[in-house]
């Protein structure tokens, strides 16, 4: 009885915090604070997963989103000058477009939520060993398994890693067809700007 009440209070508390932090992530005008609000929102939705007894999903959520993606976003903000830049105020017309389309999207989403039946299993018990089941399902070749998507994702990650390395490398490699020139192009831009006196050397590292 009281346990149910505590559960309900916790659910609404976490939900309210998630909604508030999501709004903050969108509305904050300082990028780093927006990233922090996003971090809080993702971490608290992991708490909601734990309340639904999906512990593995919660762990992966924190590992991938909070520890990986948000840290990456924070790195990107810190390494560029975007931390000093505030978001531009959009034009009035753009705001109207944005407002109308988001209201329309909300109506579609609400309609879909209202018309879809969600069968609730009131006595749903967690299997207990869900991690092992997920692992076996990922390696299963039959119709119930996910071996092909699993292997495809690893290929995709490999491509992303190699692509990132190619883009980030500083020296232009000889006899290699795939290169963007890396930093060299950026250095050329900075050199040109320095020549015109627009950028002082110390100005770039703030």
């Amino acid at each position: 009885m009281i346990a149910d009440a505590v559960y309900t209070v916790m659910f609404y508390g976490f939900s309210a915090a998630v909604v508030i932090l999501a709004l903050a992530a969108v509305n904050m005008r300082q990028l780093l604070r927006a990233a922090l609000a996003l971090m809080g929102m993702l971490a608290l939705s992991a708490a909601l997963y734990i309340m639904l007894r999906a512990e593995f999903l919660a762990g992966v959520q924190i590992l991938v989103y909070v520890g990986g993606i948000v840290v990456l976003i924070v790195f990107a903000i810190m390494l560029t000058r975007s931390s000093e830049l505030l978001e531009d105020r959009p034009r009035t017309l753009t705001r109207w477009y944005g407002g109308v389309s988001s209201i329309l999207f909300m109506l579609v989403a609400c309609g879909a939520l209202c018309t879809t039946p969600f069968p609730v299993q009131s006595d749903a018990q967690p299997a207990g060993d869900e991690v092992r089941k997920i692992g076996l399902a990922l390696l299963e070749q039959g119709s119930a398994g996910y071996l092909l998507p699993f292997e495809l994702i690893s290929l995709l990650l490999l491509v992303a890693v190699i692509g990132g390395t190619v883009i980030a490398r500083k020296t232009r490699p000889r006899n290699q067809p795939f290169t963007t020139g890396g930093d060299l192009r950026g250095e050329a831009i900075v050199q040109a700007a320095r020549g015109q006196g627009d950028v002082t050397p110390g100005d770039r590292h703030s």
Partner: protein
Amino acid sequence: MQFVHTIAAAAATNSTWAPQTLAQRAADSAPHSLWLTAGYFLLAVVGVAALLSFLGMALIYIERKIAAHFQCRLGPTRVGPFGLFQTLADTLKLVFKEDFVPPKADRSLHMLAPFLALLVPVVLLALIPYSPNVQVADLNIGILFITAIGGFGVMGILIAGWSSNNKWSMIGAMRAGAQIISYELSATLALLVVVLFSGTMSLTGIVLSQQDGWWIWRGHAAGFVAFLIYVVASTAELNRTPFDIPEGESELTAGFHTEYSGLRFAFFFLAEFINMFTVSALTATLFLGGWMPFHVGDWAGFNAAMDTIPPGIWFLTKTSMVIFVIMWFRWTFPRLRVDQLMHLEWKVLLPLGFANLFVAAVVVLTELYPYPLAK
């Protein structure tokens, strides 16, 4: 998949231990008495808080004493017997110091960062199995959760460096971030070896799986190499010497916490020491059998003698040994340069970790353990 089941079944039936966590007790008592549940909850909170403050005091004193004896000094001797109250005096001094926030700093983030840094070790303290009956909660995704939370830990440092609005802080934070994110890969690969061996991610399950031999030698060379990789990688994650370039004094003043003073600086300091404890405790739990006593094959008399030592003492002894080794590192190895640091991780530890994981998988699949499970 047979091997997984044999190990799990052996751990379940063979076990003379019946571990019970505080969370389990609280859940069991909920139908009878909510006051008891609330009591267990309170006990967990108070216990973790007490452990946190005690460890902070004790580890700082021990570090100073060990450092002093490595350098043929005596260390703190004046405040209290053997200088035992030195840390207390230092903490009091820090409490009364001005809590200074630089005028151009991002005030609220500057205030928030120390709490973020301290959050991770506090959560980890609740997950460590200290003894069969002393553990706040045992998650069935324990290892995954520890890895996830560990990645979260870098945020406090990054935010501290950025919000200070100081170049030294910023460079220190970026170095710390790059270092922690890089070495996390190797540490996770080493943890995966243990998960592979024990067939479970729960920390108590891992301790129980080491009843017939600790993973450091039951897993052939793979267990030992994983142990070495984990100790090196987690020392780097701790930002301790020889991996302390984020706060290299000669280059960066104090790195990410240059602009912190008073109690907020103490928080970073405390977080660092508690992190050292949690890393040592996890090393002991994963590779050295946790609270499991030392047993040798079928020497019944020897094993019975070892069983008379309480599991809590075993855990404490193993953890203190790892802590001593980490402190020993500090006075043995010189600080690495940034390029050496990255070279060590990406060109040495990471390929070694992958190869080691492969070897471990072969060992588990062929069940070629040097000490087979007693069936």
